[in-house]
């Protein structure tokens, strides 16, 4: 066991750090200010293009696809170093790199790999995800969007409604899962597509969120025609594709440099005046924040253990679920606590206070994190069933044709 870099890792870190110092600053986002979505995505494309041109776009992908062909530890080193900057790395690039590419590489044909992987890595093709539906969230396989084959045109005609499609209003392509057969059980009648977001019949409407932001959308698909060449994997293989994609999502969660989290709150408490000198001199505050910090560090080291497993070719499977489960719950608790530490100033702030609005955003966004990408309850089920081997839920829908449910 060694928590320090090997000489090779250290050398790579030095190189990467120098390269970042020379290149990252011009792409940094301003602190505490939300820039226009279109401007952010433009910056994001440019930063990804710059990275890929220098073999930093994907550390793990082979060089033939435009990656570096590096090790998972190099990927970790680069993410840590990149995390020191406030860079545009939102879902508009993350879905492409972390979800679309792995799925196309595993399930797609070589011409599809050719068409999509390079442009995505170069920031020329941005992606959104058309998965969840109003009545299919945790129960994704219950989705109702229909794709019907028009054999004459060799196209699929798609109708339905998707939600929570982040950045769908500004991205080029979408990964889509749709039902192509209602006469088989729900998991078996699904097929996976990629769709050009400029296709006629796609209407993207922003969803007003409780945070005040509108960066998620609902996407209505009306007689959208998708050529069969944009189908990834076989007809009916959609669930397997979706699982590949979501595994990419799960391993990506919490992977970015989140070190600043609790230490920032502890600093903040140390600087908040109180009867006992500062809020951090209060033992209840100290106990709560030390516990949160210990948990955060433990989680970081747990993720390190997962990466060691992956680097050996082992699959950590559902054990990885604890990262987001623990993280999002701690995030809600500590951001709520930080507001309390601020006392009355925690509920209303002056224009020159840039920290309080961050706490507010955290406290609100934590509710989404406890739901998105596997709700608390789903993650606990996965851990119990897949790691501890406990029985699955009583299911009444598993072997019944979708149209008989």
């Amino acid at each position: 066991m060694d928590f320090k870099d090997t000489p090779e890792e250290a050398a790579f870190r030095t190189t990467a750090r120098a390269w970042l110092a020379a290149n990252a600053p011009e792409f940094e986002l301003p602190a505490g200010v939300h820039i226009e979505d279109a401007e952010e995505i433009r910056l994001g494309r440019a930063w990804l293009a710059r990275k890929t041109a220098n073999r930093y776009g994907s550390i793990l992908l082979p060089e033939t696809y435009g990656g570096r062909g590096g090790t998972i530890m190099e990927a970790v080193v680069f993410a840590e170093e990149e995390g020191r900057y406030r860079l545009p790395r939102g879902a508009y690039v993350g879905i492409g790199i972390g979800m679309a590419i792995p799925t196309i590489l595993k399930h797609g044909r070589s011409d599809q790999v050719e068409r999509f992987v390079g442009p995505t890595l170069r920031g020329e093709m941005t992606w959104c995800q058309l998965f969840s539906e109003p009545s299919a969230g945790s129960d994704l396989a219950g989705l109702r969007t229909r794709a019907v084959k028009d054999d004459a045109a060799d196209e699929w005609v798609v109708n339905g409604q998707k939600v929570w499609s982040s950045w769908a209003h500004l991205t080029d392509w979408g990964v889509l899962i749709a039902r192509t057969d209602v006469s088989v059980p729900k998991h078996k009648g699904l097929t996976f597509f990629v769709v050009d977001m400029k296709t006629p019949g796609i209407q993207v409407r922003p969803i007003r969120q409780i945070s005040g932001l509108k960066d998620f959308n609902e996407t209505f698909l009306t007689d959208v025609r998708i050529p069969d060449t944009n189908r990834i994997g076989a007809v009916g293989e959609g669930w397997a594709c979706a699982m590949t994609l979501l595994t990419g999502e799960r391993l990506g969660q919490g992977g970015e440099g989140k070190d600043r989290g609790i230490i920032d709150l502890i600093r903040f408490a140390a600087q908040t005046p109180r009867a006992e000198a500062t809020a951090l001199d209060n033992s209840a505050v100290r106990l709560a924040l030390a516990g949160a910090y210990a948990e955060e560090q433990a989680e970081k080291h747990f993720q390190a253990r997962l990466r060691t497993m992956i680097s050996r070719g082992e699959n950590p499977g559902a054990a990885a679920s604890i990262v987001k489960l623990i993280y999002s719950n701690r995030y809600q608790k500590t951001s709520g606590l930080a507001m309390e530490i601020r006392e009355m100033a925690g509920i209303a702030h002056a224009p020159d206070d840039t920290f309080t609005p961050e706490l507010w955003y955290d406290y609100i966004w934590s509710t989404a994190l406890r739901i998105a990408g596997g709700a608390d309850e789903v993650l606990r089920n996965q851990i119990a069933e897949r790691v501890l081997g406990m029985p699955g839920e009583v299911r009444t829908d598993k072997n019944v044709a979708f149209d008989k449910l």
Partner: protein
Amino acid sequence: MNFDLSDEQKMLGEQARGLLSARSTFDRLRALIDAGFEWDEPLWRELAEMGFLGAAIPEVHGGLGMSELDLAVISQELGRANAALPFFSSIVLAADAIRLAGSDAQQSEWLPKLARGEIVACFAYAEGSAGWTGGAVKARLANARLIGTKTPVADGGVADIAVVLTEVGGEPGLALVRLDQPGVTRVKLASFDQLRAHYSLIFDGAAAEVLDAQPAREVLDQLFDRAAVQAAFEGVGGAEACLYMARDYAMERQIFGRSLAGYQAIKHKLADVYAGVELARSAAFYGAWAAADGGNELPAAAAAARLQAIDAFERAARENIQVHGGIGYTFEANCHFYYRRERTLALSLGGRERWADRLIAHLPDLRSEAPDHAKAA
């Protein structure tokens, strides 16, 4: 011994609930936010007409002279509806401060106007993170002129007058200030609760009169204890609204072929929310009774009610969104009203620590009655 509301109180609650559920709908709340309004002024007028504003104001001053428990019934319904009204500021805090600390003349001048809703008052106590206890208050009153900044002040934008916690001659004091005068500047703050706007009130020699029929030092604890009980009821109302929103949503949502409400993860979560709500309500009942009774149970009873209500509403507001899933994160789904109001209630009047300290300070004889083990300690 009788631990329930009277039939009259239940009727009063139903009346308030009927009015609010008809007028202060979620659609209405969203419309107020979109219009940038800081309160639901027409609804305030209706409340005034129905006598709700003056419920606990003495009859001689134009109110109905009802008890703290009647007022609490109204507070609970305002919490349930998440109403956009300055009731807590104008009635629970400011009017009560005038009643407790004002002279007969001051009471006669202001309470009838507050009861009729002709004017709105805010109560300005905090001065930022620094709190307002001990030596923290920097605002100063001298020669009937007030100097200092109070922030944040709930409903400071819609108020006509403010009752201000200030120093008067080295002692804490309460001053009454008209806000429509040159020596007053109001600066609107960003507020976490989109339906309860907060302001900084900057006093630069504003004319002010002292409320000094009773020493403020004695009035303040009492005022905050009484307000804590009303805040607890507001929190219980909000928590209960969250509980039943979540329950109803889970009942209609289907997942994996059956009702979401049939899963133990959801059932047990809501059972815990229910337990929290009922315990908090019980503590609040006792607090309101203690306030009405006027005995020395109030400080501990108010503190216990406050602590239980903060816990209950916090849990209910968080888990309500969780049970709703993704839809709960949309503005249209209405969970957010409670999620924001909850923090506002929890952080007003001093948070958990203040009330934990107050509770322990008012327990009987902690150091004198030695239990058996003291010998062996």
